[in-house]
């Protein structure tokens, strides 16, 4: 994985020193909150309901065990013993003290981490496929391109005050495991005549006005990649709606201009940008690629036989939580942070340490955070699976529910977030408890359920096979149900079913929808397939009568 060079470390260290001074001046009363707020937000420090919240960047969700242990250290030392992994592959701490924040950033900097650009109207953490470098179906490692974007976008002076925040995802396979087309810019690496290049989608997103990004550039060679990104951002920076926060995202611009006209303007701008010569030489691409080479010693091995364990809890976990690796005899393991009744995405300091230990011992010292708020050990020998499983059981991390109905994405909601209108976590907990029976979950099959506590859609409700949106109805929490969304390669936006429900009512409604699916499905159909075949009506009838 990528390691900081002297420039990376120098700019992060300088930022720690700068922010430490700003915090000291704020605590001394030398600057007002109005003056300080943009400074703390630039360093990922929000003020939420109960305390300050710090969002730490995890570039494209990739970490080593040393960094993961630092996340546990911060949870234990400065917070209340846990952290919350987010849909942007980052981690948030909910109980931070302002006076501790300089020390936290210094600790992060000591392991090549920071909280820069995790807030504000700038280019946020680049997200990617959690199986990058391990997936057999990728045409290249998307993290190489994501790292190039990270370096280009960090402290980019022209794009530090965009009309609105800006999110980019990079994938390298036809299967989209990063909700790529629901980003401001989505990039899919593809090959053309044996050359790897980028297919560029612009103008996707969720929030108040959800849109699936249209293709803007069908193929960009790496020699023109950053120039193309620069041109895309320049057109947005020039014409984005700074006059109206609700219309300021690039999706509104692309929609209003039309994809063809936006693409034309990007092409025109590209001529000017290319003259600047911002794209790095081939040697720099090759330098970055070397950081993401397959780990040394990861060689083909014999596959693990089950040895009479078929039908066991281990066998179910292995079937559900592992996926094939590009090297024979290996798998990528997804560790569920969705125990029934737990808080989606939360992990204690002790659990974070356990996952770091497992990565160091069994996964060539690598971990990934998924946009579904789980953790991946990307490079695991099948022969090590029993030992890993036993360790996960001991740490209460062995739920075999990846992509099942209890593997719910949920934002922090009104329990923590100052923007939220309704609580998300209790709804997720009640749904998971309603479907707690593992056999029932397996019978239902793949069902992606996503919950947001407000229209900002941090819980990706638009992209849920079943989505839930919490709203404030005259001071009371109310929940709308949406069906038919997908953040995968068949991206689609969910449609609202009808009148909303209270907290218990929405749990009942979800169960009725799922049971109607079980009566309607054909062989092999997922919930989403059945919904797309039969439409909304049968489900409405099941819920509203």
């Amino acid at each position, binding site marked *: 994985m990528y390691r900081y060079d002297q420039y990376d470390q120098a700019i992060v260290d300088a930022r720690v020193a700068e922010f430490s001074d700003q915090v000291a001046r*704020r*605590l001394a*009363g030398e600057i*007002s*909150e109005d003056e300080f707020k943009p400074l703390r937000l630039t360093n990922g420090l929000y*003020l*939420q*309901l*109960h*305390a*300050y919240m710090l969002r730490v960047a995890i570039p494209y969700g990739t970490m080593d065990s040393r960094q993961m242990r630092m996340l546990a250290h911060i949870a234990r030392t400065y917070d*209340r013993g846990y952290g919350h992994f987010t849909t942007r592959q980052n981690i948030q701490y*909910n*109980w*931070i*003290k*302002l*006076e501790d924040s300089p020390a936290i950033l210094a600790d992060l900097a000591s392991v090549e981490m920071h909280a820069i650009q995790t807030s504000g109207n700038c280019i946020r953490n680049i997200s990617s496929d959690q199986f990058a470098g391990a997936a057999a179906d990728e045409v290249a490692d998307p993290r190489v391109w994501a790292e190039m974007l990270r370096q280009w976008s960090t402290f980019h002076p022209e794009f530090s005050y965009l009309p609105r925040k800006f999110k980019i995802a990079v994938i390298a396979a036809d299967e989209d495991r990063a909700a790529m087309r629901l980003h401001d810019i989505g990039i899919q690496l593809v090959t053309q005549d044996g050359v790897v290049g980028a297919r560029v989608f612009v103008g996707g997103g969720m929030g108040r006005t959800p849109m699936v990004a249209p293709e803007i550039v069908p193929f960009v060679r790496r020699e023109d990649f950053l120039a193309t990104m620069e041109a895309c951002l320049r057109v947005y920076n020039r014409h984005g709606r700074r006059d109206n926060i609700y219309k300021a995202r690039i999706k509104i611009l692309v929609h209003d201009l039309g994809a063809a006209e936006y693409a034309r303007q990007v092409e025109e701008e590209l001529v000017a940008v290319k003259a600047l010569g911002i794209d790095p030489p081939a040697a720099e691409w090759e330098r970055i690629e070397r950081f993401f080479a397959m780990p040394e010693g990861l060689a083909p091995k014999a596959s693990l036989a089950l040895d009479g364990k078929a039908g066991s809890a281990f066998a179910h976990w292995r079937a559900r939580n592992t996926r094939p690796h590009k090297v024979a005899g290996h798998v990528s393991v997804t560790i569920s942070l969705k125990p029934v009744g737990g*808080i989606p995405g939360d992990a204690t300091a002790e659990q974070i340490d356990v996952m770091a230990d497992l990565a160091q011992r069994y996964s060539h010292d690598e971990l990934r955070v998924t946009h579904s708020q789980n953790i991946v050990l990307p490079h695991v020998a099948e022969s090590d699976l029993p030992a890993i499983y036993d360790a996960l059981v001991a740490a209460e991390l062995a739920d075999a529910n990846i992509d099942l109905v209890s593997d719910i994405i949920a934002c922090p909601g*009104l*329990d*923590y977030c*100052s923007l*939220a209108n309704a*609580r998300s*976590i*209790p709804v997720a*907990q009640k749904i998971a408890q309603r479907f707690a029976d593992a056999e029932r979950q397996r019978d239902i099959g793949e069902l992606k359920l996503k919950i947001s506590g407000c229209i900002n859609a941090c819980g990706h409700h638009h992209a849920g096979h079943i989505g839930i949106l919490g709203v404030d109805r005259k*001071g*009371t*929490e109310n929940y709308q149900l949406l069906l038919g969304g997908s953040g995968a390669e068949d991206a689609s936006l969910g449609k609202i079913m009808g009148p909303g429900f209270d907290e218990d009512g929405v749990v009942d409604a979800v169960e009725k929808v799922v049971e109607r699916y079980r009566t309607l499905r054909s062989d092999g159909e997922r919930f989403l397939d059945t919904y797309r075949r039969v439409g909304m009506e049968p489900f409405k009838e099941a819920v509203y009568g």
Partner: protein
Amino acid sequence: MKLLTGNDLKDGRVTWWTGSGWSLHVEDAVDVGEKGEAILAAEEGARRVNAPYVIDAIATPEGPRPAHIKDRIRALGPTVRPDLTLKPADPAAGEWVI
């Protein structure tokens, strides 16, 4: 009744105006009536509290109860982590929020 609330500058914890200072406990909050803006301005000047604002509340025998669920959650703590609320020994404390 109206309450004045904000977050402590140093640690971000929720605080309530008591008439002479700030408390972590909503039970200590006093009705500020129409004086909220004046108190707010003075406290902002003292830099002791972040983002203070005035909320509506209802007087009850147990003390003030914020009118909106968001402020009741602020007053108690996250409903999904009773151990992290201001009343960790009271498992039924969350019912006050709902």
